[in-house]
């Protein structure tokens, strides 16, 4: 990738067909342009269905967009954004997504890391457990959302049966999906159940990279399991931890299908999250401009939070090493 002066022997290192400036017009140079032939079909499609819409998304958010043919869509500047800042339902949707993120991310990490530690050893049945724990991750969001709706049903729901008849901790069946915070509990439970396998898998891969000899040496020095985990494994999986946290935080704010199918933002917009509210505005009320503005606000917030986490992780890592 670097463009230093070619040293002796570097000829064999250049890509076949790489641009050789000393012999313009040689087969090599023409072959360099052949690369474009490989790239153009895929890249054109990518520009059409990803690149162009990405630009359009911003422009639409600055308009009072009308989908009716022939109707004008006037430019209204930042009006969609100022409207968003004064929309109590949108504010609530961000709070809901924030609470979802703050509760499900630490839970997934703790359980996922715990399972990874349990599996990080020579153990008959290890692959079976790993495959089993990962099954909810590969199962479609639609199926598991309906499944949890069924488990959390008010009448005849398994969760209520367990709480009322088996444990006896509540006197009457809970209307889980009919109230804001109980619905968030059900949606969060689904998020954790579906997600732990993913963090388990990533942590397990990271733990496999910790040299055995370090553990053995620490054990010889009398370090117990917890101290070995804290001082031997943790420093190794720290970069993985940063990645997992950032990806889970992004995913948490982008929670969508489970909410759409379990409550559809109801009752009375109590359980809206930014993406269900955006979807309602766009494809329920056909307010594409406002929907796009909500998408951008969410993306911006998530980028800022992820950026801050990354920056903080880098800073503390540097401080720790040097």
């Amino acid at each position, binding site marked *: 990738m670097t463009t230093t002066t070619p040293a002796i022997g570097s000829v064999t290192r250049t890509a076949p067909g790489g641009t050789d400036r000393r012999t313009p017009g040689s087969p090599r140079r023409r072959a360099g*342009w052949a690369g474009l032939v490989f790239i153009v079909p895929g890249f054109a499609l990518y520009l059409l269905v990803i690149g162009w819409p990405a630009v359009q998304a911003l422009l639409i958010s600055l308009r009072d967009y009308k989908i009716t043919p022939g109707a004008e869509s006037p430019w209204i500047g930042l009006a969609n954004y100022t409207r968003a800042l004064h929309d109590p339902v949108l504010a609530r949707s961000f709070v809901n997504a924030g609470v979802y993120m703050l509760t499900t991310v630490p839970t997934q990490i703790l359980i996922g890391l715990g399972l990874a530690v349990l599996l990080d050893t020579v153990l008959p049945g290890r692959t079976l457990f790993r495959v089993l724990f990962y099954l909810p991750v590969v199962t479609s969001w639609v199926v598991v959302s309906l499944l949890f709706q069924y488990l959390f049903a008010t009448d005849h729901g398994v969760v209520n049966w367990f709480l009322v008849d088996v444990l006896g901790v509540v006197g009457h069946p809970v209307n889980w999906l009919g109230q804001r915070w109980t619905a968030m509990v059900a949606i969060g439970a689904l998020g954790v159940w579906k997600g732990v396998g993913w963090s388990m898998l990533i942590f397990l891969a990271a733990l496999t990279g910790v040299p055995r000899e370090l553990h053995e040496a620490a054990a010889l020095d009398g370090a117990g399991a917890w101290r070995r985990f804290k001082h031997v494994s943790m420093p190794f999986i720290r970069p993985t931890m940063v990645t997992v946290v950032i990806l889970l935080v992004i995913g948490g704010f982008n929670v969508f299908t489970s909410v759409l199918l379990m409550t559809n933002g109801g009752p009375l917009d109590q359980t809206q999250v930014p993406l269900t509210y955006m979807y309602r505005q766009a494809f329920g009320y056909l307010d594409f401009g406002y929907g796009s503005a909500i998408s951008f606000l969410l993306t911006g917030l998530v980028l800022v939070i992820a950026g801050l986490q990354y920056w903080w992780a880098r800073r503390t890592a540097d401080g720790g090493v040097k």
Partner: protein
Amino acid sequence: MIAGPRSRRVTVAGVRYALLIGAAVVLALPFGYMVSTSLKAHTLLLEYPPRLIPKSPTLDNYAQAWGANNFGRYFLNSASVAIATTVGTVLLASMMAYGFARFRFPGKGVLFGTVVVGLTIPTMLLIIPQFLLAKNLGLLDSLPGLVPFYVGTQIAFSTFLLRAFFEQIPMELDEAMIIDGAGAWRRYWNLAIPLSKPALATVAIFTFLGSWDEFVWALTVINDVSKRTLPIGIALFQGQHGTSWGLVFAASVIAVVPVIAVYVTFQRQLVAGLTNGALKS
């Protein structure tokens, strides 16, 4: 001996297994309950207290979902869209990745940078302008119309993964073929592709599973009942028949079984692809 006396090691292993089995039960129970509900006759769906093992299991729900409720049709719809998406993605992404890995030309960095930026764009941010684009192109309410959007969504990640793989193929092999007079296309098709089967398999599996399970886009653009894919078929079916959980879960099992089969068969490739992506980012 690192781990103390033998009896202690046995205890540790016992605790380890107990915790793992407990977690496995908690994670598997909802699936078990789904399968069990799908096997219950209609009259028993609202039984109370719920029982995990159905008293007289029946396949009626499956027969009814597959036949009378169109799920056979939806299955074929999903399968053809997923296969077309997989073929298109593997072909276009591997060509693009080969172009980026093996050639130099002005502007390459900018083009590759554009692809990498695509990895960070949330798909939901694009759903409104993509809907308008599909409308302008006349691709609304069309099953083949789903494919270019699915391929576009998958292509950035796939290209990224394949480019890294192609770059590991020794350049000397290419040079040997050049000496034999092979052109760029033959080096791609007869050298890079055969040597990259594991990476291509990973991309194919991810793409297939991604488009098989895709829900929001299909929900947004497909209108015609006969053109539904499995995820929207299941989700909207539930809306019409609020209490027919036996049918809903029979259809869900039909949708989930191919995914689990693919996952269990190829889990090594999937795990490698996933952890590479996450650990190197």
